[in-house]
């Protein structure tokens, strides 16, 4: 589904990631951890086609990222739901419209998805704020909204960059449960996080693997967590 072979990446200076090989099988659940600045966000961007590797080969849904044109990238983003570390919204649209935006831009009928949208809003605990504009939301609320937007298209893969960075523990668990439920429905999940407690609670619910970036490489973390 997502496959990296000998992938290296540098932003222009020294290599940030070197010769990384990684395969995310359909239905798998992965955490990605590592110190700040280690390259977690960078690795995630490589996994959803936002960055091209400086060396090596990445295939997404059996397609080489280098061979993908802009339309192919757009189609890919409908199959990969992404929660960005810096959640960006359209500030002139309401929360509900922002969450439904992936449906709108892909030409789906938003009206027929209203029930879905209401469920999602309930799950992230924001049913009361459907009419709010993004600048009126708190950091944690924005993260929850970003997660809802990432899953509204019913994607095959969900990539989340620190999705619980700004929310309290109770809400973190709630969001984790949503991701675990989606994983049980067969979706592939990849989450970058610092939060070891979150990883531990996930391990109680699902067979999650933990990848750690250390010395520009990826290691599979053992049971020491």
């Amino acid at each position: 589904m997502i496959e990296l072979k000998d992938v290296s990446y540098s932003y222009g200076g020294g290599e940030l990631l070197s010769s990384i090989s990684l395969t995310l099988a359909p239905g798998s659940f992965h955490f990605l951890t590592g110190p700040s600045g280690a390259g977690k966000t960078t690795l995630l961007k490589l996994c959803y086609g936002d960055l091209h590797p400086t060396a090596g080969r990445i295939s997404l849904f059996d397609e080489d990222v280098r061979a993908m044109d802009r339309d192919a990238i757009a189609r890919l983003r409908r199959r990969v739901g992404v929660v960005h570390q810096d959640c960006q919204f359209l500030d002139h649209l309401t929360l509900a419209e922002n969450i439904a935006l992936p449906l709108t831009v892909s030409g789906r009928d938003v009206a027929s998805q209203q029930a879905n949208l209401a469920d999602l809003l309930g799950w992230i605990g924001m049913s009361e704020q459907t009419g709010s504009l993004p600048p009126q939301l708190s950091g944690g609320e924005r993260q929850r909204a970003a997660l809802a937007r990432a899953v509204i298209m019913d994607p095959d893969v969900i990539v989340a960059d620190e999705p619980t960075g700004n929310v309290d523990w109770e809400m973190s668990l709630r969001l984790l449960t949503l991701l675990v439920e989606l994983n049980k429905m067969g979706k592939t999940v990849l989450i970058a996080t610092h939060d070891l407690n979150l990883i531990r609670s996930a391990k109680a619910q699902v067979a999650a693997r933990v990848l750690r970036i250390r010395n520009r490489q990826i290691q599979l973390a053992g049971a020491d967590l």
Partner: protein
Amino acid sequence: MSVARNLLAILRGDSDADRTVPPTGFTARLTLFSAAAMSFLAVFALALSLATGRLADRWSSELARSATVRISAPAGQEEAQVRAAVRVLETTPGVASFRVLDMAEQRALLEPWFGPDLPLDSLPIPQMIEVIEDASGYDAGGLRLRLQAEAPGAVLDDHTRWRRPLVRAADRLRMLGIVSILLIVATTAAMITLAANAALAANAQVIRVLRLVGARDVYIARAFVRRFTLRALSGATVGTVFAMLAVALLPSAAQEGGFLTGLGFQGAHWLWALCIPLLVAFVAFWATRLAALSTLKELN
């Protein structure tokens, strides 16, 4: 073609896609104003071309049957002088053809002035020969001299010849009008491209978010294209209507001789003026589309 389909889709509209890009008040008004002003100018340039075109056509068709040779000779000599003049004309280079008018024709020519009951036979009416020159034309001075020698009663009247340079001027004026229209269209395209680029730059963040959630470039471009096309169309319609009113309200004076008073639209030519808003909309459509797609392509 797909252009027609795109234009139709634009007019039908897609309110969802429209909402994804925030409205921009000031550039919108500037685009409206520019489209209106340019269309106003284009209507005048069009009126100028059409009017000078009409003038040139009318004058040059009159030129084609321009000259006449008039022979008034004492009774008895007339026939001999006509024959002499005919011989001269036959051997004059630049004369394509000529024709000695018969009495009935001359009567028809004079009728508007003297009424139908003119007793031509009893009046000393000069004999007329209609001379049609070829493209190169003849040497009027030379012809006059030869006529004088052979047929002293013959007078060459080429009074419409003075219009020849005027026809050239009218043709040139029509060309200038057409060039002006082309320049106006090109300027419209340039202004709309600048406005579209400004709008795209102002909405860089919106475009980024749309790309992140899986919008294709054409989807994003369409939101801008639709806006600018509709703005240009409405601005151009207003400008065209005002210009057409202004043309319609031009004071009308004498039919003939008035070049200035001929500046207007006649009959089906009014429809040409109505094409201007469509042309401006078409130009706006392509200018915005090309600007948007090339800007988007450069984004990461």
